[in-house]
């Protein structure tokens, strides 16, 4: 969290100001995005997102799995899951390469929570989906392409 807080402050945006106000107790925590990693969620490209997450250039790992269908009938709801057998995973993130902002969600896993998370994301178009995990302080990644198809009557 400290690392993320620093990132937010460094970004110098409105949210950072809110974060400082919240930290100072001037506005209630419910009103502010104190901890939300704005820099990472605002980043556009994969590389910038990884940088904002402090992940650098993670190694591909066979021990990380992205689950989901090869084809999504609609991009508004695409089921994706991340699972990994790597030890001591403290963080999992889902990135969608071709979305306007690559980062979809991050999950912080305390000890005892399994590295096995499922959610549903929006995809603007056919894209690679990346699963990023932090294991013993190091980052690893895996990818899968999901095709988004057009629907029947055409809008």
């Amino acid at each position, binding site marked *: 969290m400290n690392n993320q807080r620093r990132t937010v402050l460094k970004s110098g945006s409105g949210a950072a100001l809110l974060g400082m106000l919240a930290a100072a107790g001037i506005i209630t925590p419910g009103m*502010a995005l104190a901890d939300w990693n704005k820099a990472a969620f605002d980043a556009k490209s994969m590389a910038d997102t990884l940088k904002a997450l402090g992940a650098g250039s993670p190694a591909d790992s066979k021990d990380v799995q992205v689950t989901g269908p090869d084809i999504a009938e609609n991009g508004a709801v695409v089921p994706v899951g991340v699972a990994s057998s790597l030890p001591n995973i403290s963080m999992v993130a889902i990135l969608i390469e071709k979305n306007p902002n690559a980062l*979809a969600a991050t999950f912080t896993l*305390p000890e005892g929570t*399994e590295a096995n998370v499922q959610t549903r994301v*929006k995809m603007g178009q056919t894209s690679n989906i990346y699963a990023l995990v932090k294991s013993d302080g190091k980052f690893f990644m895996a990818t899968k392409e999901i095709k988004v198809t057009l629907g029947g009557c055409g809008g």
Partner: protein
Amino acid sequence: MGNPMKIRAANKDGVTEVKVLVSHEMETGQRKDANGAIVPAWFITELVAKHGDKTVLSSEFGPSVSKNPYLAFKFKGGAKGDKITVSWKDNKGDSRSDEATIG
């Protein structure tokens, strides 16, 4: 305040699986309304799940999590009858907590 969440939690062989369905618009901030004006972003930013007092998952969402977010995860421990609490906050400052009992 939003509408209630649907939380299901079941313990099997010492592992509790939690499934959460949240009622939320998750507006991306990229969509245009009928008049061509951008509809402002409105989405859940943080979602935290607790088993009793212990945090078992904390998540941060961007606007590309689907409308009415769904989340499933597993943690070691938990017993039938224990409480699971899920809370979220969104970028407009709205928040909500709901709880469920492990079955």
